[in-house]
């Protein structure tokens, strides 16, 4: 009888152990599955990031090429035109008066081309720094007399990488182009706040605003998507508010790095 009792008790214990084993293996399977999904998501994200970086690099190269073309070719042609006009006025001083408006426009165009060529060239952003580049771009836009860009800054030395600065500058360009072309804004306010830990860029326009869902539904929402994706590449949080007839405001913030608890 003792043998039967032992056999039954052992069999029951074995079954219970088996159940524990099964439960444990189920949770292990789940963990493995979650790990795989996480790895897959991470790979996808990295892949997307790489594609975006390549896209950015390509577009930067194209912009640099356009900038050098503007500077070297069109700039040279405009200079040649300038010299030609100077020669004409020297040869025929009586026509000098009639060349004054042309010379004025030519000077303006040359200046615009020079500034545009600079703003398209990423070396210029490296040289001038982000704030300097934004200020020069603002001057260029103001010279167009289409709207007014006001730049305010409250900052100490902020800690941004060159790539981040370039990305932020391109975001600023995209937003200012949108404000100019689509929003029909009269004013664009740029507010830069920064210190060694935080960085914040706020851009507001007083244009017509837009319906986010409507823009996203249309294929031409790529500008907005570009801004958000560029911001994510630059490691910034992007927040924007807009309503039809009430302008648009964008806020980009760099997340402060939390101090490590480890000693």
């Amino acid at each position, binding site marked *: 009888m003792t043998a039967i009792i032992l056999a*039954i008790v052992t*069999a*029951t214990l074995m079954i*219970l152990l088996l*159940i524990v084993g*099964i439960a444990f293996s189920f*949770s292990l399977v789940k963990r493995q599955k979650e790990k795989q999904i996480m790895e897959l998501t991470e790979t996808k994200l990295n892949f997307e990031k790489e594609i975006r970086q390549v896209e950015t690099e390509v577009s930067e190269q194209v912009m640099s090429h356009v900038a050098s073309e503007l500077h070297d070719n069109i700039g040279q042609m405009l200079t040649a035109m300038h010299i030609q006009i100077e020669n004409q006025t020297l040869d025929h001083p009586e026509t000098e008066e009639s060349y004054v408006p042309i010379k004025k426009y030519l000077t303006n165009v040359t200046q615009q081309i020079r500034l545009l060529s600079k703003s398209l060239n990423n070396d210029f952003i490296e040289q001038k720094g982000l704030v300097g580049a934004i200020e020069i771009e603002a001057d260029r836009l103001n010279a167009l007399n289409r709207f007014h860009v006001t730049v305010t800054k409250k900052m100490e030395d902020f800690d941004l990488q060159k790539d981040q600065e370039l990305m932020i500058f391109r975001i600023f360009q995209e937003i200012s182009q949108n404000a100019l072309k689509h929003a029909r804004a009269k004013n664009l306010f740029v507010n830069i706040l920064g210190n060694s830990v935080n960085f914040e860029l706020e851009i507001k326009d007083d244009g017509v605003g837009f319906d986010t869902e409507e823009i996203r539904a249309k294929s031409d929402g790529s500008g907005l998507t570009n801004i958000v994706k560029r911001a994510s590449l630059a490691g910034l949080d992007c927040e924007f508010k807009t309503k039809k007839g009430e302008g648009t405001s964008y806020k980009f913030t760099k997340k402060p790095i939390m101090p490590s608890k480890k000693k």
Partner: protein
Amino acid sequence: MQQFFHHLFHILLLLVFLIGILSLKKSSIFFKLIFFQVVYTCLTTVVAILYKKYQIDHGMVVNNMWLGNINLFIELSIIFYAFRIYLKESWIKKSVTIAYLIFVSVYALTGWQQGFWVILNYADLTSCFLMTLILVYAYFIVSQEKNISIWKSPEKLAIMGMLIYFAGSIPFIAMWDYLITNSPKVLALLYVGINYTIAYIRYIFVGIAFWLIYKNAKKQIISS
């Protein structure tokens, strides 16, 4: 000693019933059915006690087996139905129905052959096997849906409690016929040692599951 385990089981059942009442409002249909099964077991236990007393008072031979057989049928019907609702895929719903029909067939056959005055251990054994399979699958599903500790998941707790009970009963019930003929004393000993232990585990787990539902509902009310 047997009386002590008996009373302990009654107290535990009563506690689970009370916690079940607290959690009832916030429970899913699955847990409402599990609660219904607890209520039914409570009622059967009360009826069994009263009937036993009546039999003793009137000098009758104490035999509650028919009550146990009815309990087996209704309890299993509720649990099969609960899992038919809980498991979402149609093939497993069909499988649960087939499993239930197998159990009913074995129950009817053994009942017809042996009569209802002896325990229908073949039907009991069949139900334990079938429920073990269903519960293992249900535990797999719930562990794939929610990767949280068993102590925080009411579903995992209730399923695990029942799984321990039904799977753990298999060796003991398989030997029931042999032991009742050859050594009723050993059967009584094992009944207390094994059946009560796994029944305690089952109802403790179900009770904790009810408590978790109640606690989570309370938390939601506070946070909202």
